[in-house]
């Protein structure tokens, strides 16, 4: 089977969940939004325009959680109704080869809610922790990070031990790159095991304590990092896109339709 796959994405998502190259199942390329992709299968990462063609799959990431159902025939997201599949993003193969983290690197706090997490940032810097924030995870930001935190997001006062609906879509990328991860405690973990392959936080204080421990004793957390990488292997982009292409190429049209 030789199929061409185009992954249409903004540079940030493409850098962590895209795929380029030749594989036993076909050829993968990344296209920028707006460029008309020439491929047998077209997948978008996030809600991006694809010229006049309806993409075969929209791999939304986190966007469907709690919001309006995304448009599209086949939608993959971490949460939401009427999904074709429920899954986090794949991990770009290159990230498994990223250089090990610099122990003097900073904690990368991935949040698009800077106002909500202003208090957390203050607590982290107050502890003397080096912190960089980013609204989304990118390969460049990941390369300079010693560890990565996806802080929990709550409307009100966070409850100790509370769980969000789903783990973040990008959570497997830092695990593949051997960065220890602090992620929100979640009901849907996509195979991640809290305390085994990552550290699960429900409140800002949980994030601060774990970040402090990880910075103080990075070597002590080697088992979590190693098991995180084992978990990330399941999300390897060349494996997941290969399965997707195989299903789209062989499945009957009826079975490919989302369940109403």
């Amino acid at each position, binding site marked *: 089977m030789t199929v061409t796959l185009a992954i249409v994405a903004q540079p940030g998502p493409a850098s962590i969940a895209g795929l380029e190259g030749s594989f036993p199942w076909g050829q993968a390329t990344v296209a920028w939004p707006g460029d008309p992709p020439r491929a047998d299968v077209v997948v978008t990462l996030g809600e991006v325009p694809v010229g006049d063609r309806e993409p075969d799959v929209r791999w939304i990431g986190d966007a469907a959680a709690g919001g309006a159902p995304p448009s599209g025939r086949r939608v993959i997201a971490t949460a939401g109704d009427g999904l074709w599949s429920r899954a986090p993003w794949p991990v770009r193969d290159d990230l498994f080869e990223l250089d090990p983290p610099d122990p003097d690197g900073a904690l990368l706090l991935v949040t698009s809610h800077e106002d909500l997490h202003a208090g957390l940032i203050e607590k982290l810097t107050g502890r003397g922790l080096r912190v960089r924030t980013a609204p989304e995870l990118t390969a460049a930001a990941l390369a300079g990070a010693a560890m990565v935190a996806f802080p929990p997001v709550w409307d009100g006062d966070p409850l100790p031990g509370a769980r969000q609906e789903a783990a973040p879509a990008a959570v497997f990328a830092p695990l593949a790159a051997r960065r220890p991860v602090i992620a929100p405690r979640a009901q849907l*973990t996509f195979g991640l095991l809290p305390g085994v392959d990552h550290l699960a936080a429900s409140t800002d204080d949980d994030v601060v304590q774990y970040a402090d*421990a990880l910075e103080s004793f990075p070597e002590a957390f080697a088992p979590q990092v190693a098991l995180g990488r084992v978990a990330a292997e399941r999300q390897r982009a060349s494996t997941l896109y290969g399965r997707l292409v195989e299903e789209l190429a062989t499945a009957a049209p009826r079975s490919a339709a989302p369940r109403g």
Partner: protein
Amino acid sequence: MRICFLVPELGRSGGAETIRSYARLLEARASFEVELIRADGEPIPEGDDPYDVAIATWWGTAGHLWRVPARRRAVLLQSIESRFYEERHFFERLAAEEVLSLPVAFVTVAGWMRDLLAELRPDAPCEMVRRGIDKSAFPPRQRAPREGPLRVLVEGQPSMWFKGVHEAVACVGAMREPAELTVVAGDPADAGEVDGARVVGGLDPGGMADLYAESDVLVKLSRVESLGLAPIEAAHVGTPAVVTPYTGHEEHVVHGRNGLVVGFDDAPGTVRALDRLARDASLLGTLSEGALETAREWPSAEDAADSFADALRAIAERPAPDAEPALQDLARARLRRLELTREYVRQSEAALERAEGERDWLRRALQEARDHVEELGAAMRGLEGIVAQKDRLIEDIRSERAYRAAVAVRRALLRRGG
């Protein structure tokens, strides 16, 4: 060679069967003398004659390795056992993790664990021996062309959180195409409620082989496995599997060749995969042939016992592992345990403080509600007094002569008018 296995109570799990199988098959070899020693609270028999190799088989037995005389000590690592424990079983999980720091040789049952140990404990001797299959109990079967509903077999103990049995049952229930569901559990009496499924269990290998052969597909949505024995057994009779990537699956299941791999927590994707198999007899046939082909390459129980014997000989012949790197690793593990315990206690205290706050709020609310009920009761009693006073007033009015006369006049007028 004289060896002993330190074992917990051996149940019906695949791991327990692995130990029994090695013990039985090695004992049958003239060059081996094998003992099984219970090491889960039972007194360990004392003796001076050292074993050539003492083998712990579960994290709870590893601490007892130094209570038996032995020239070499090893751990048969059938999983990274910390993964069996949820967050609430915090201390067991940490204890299970520490097995990886011991100054012993390791025998793993899958390549991913060997690779993990090579990363975490490059100093530790490590052998990898895949569990074999009793080829006489699981011979290839002729499969008739499929007709009727897809016959789905879900394997796993429903009461174990990481087996994903309830998720699998829900996916079968959500299929568009007709399906017949059977759940096979190690202990069906402890299976609990499993909606719409026939639950069977306690089967011997021949019974399991028949059950696999009567099924079109095996579904295993475990979150944690080391190797996942059931899909391998099923493949031997030509039944393909739909599995989550539970680790160890990659030793055997190849997506599109002998099974399908679906994502964790991906119910829509899993339902779609099952519907595909129900609709596409050709795909099911291809996967069945692929399963038989893969099974032919899988080691037999005898092959595995030979490899296990070789591994033990290698462990016995090598010098005992250096304790220093193990101690360094233990020191790191102690730091991790300290930091995580500190945080576990802080989170527990925060949860307790929150719960106490809620309790106090509820107590205040209850007292306020009681006070309110008391006020309402007093108001009710006042109202009842007023009502009684009114009733007496009405009776007084009714007893007056003028009232009775007026009533009599009205009746007379009504009769005349009627």
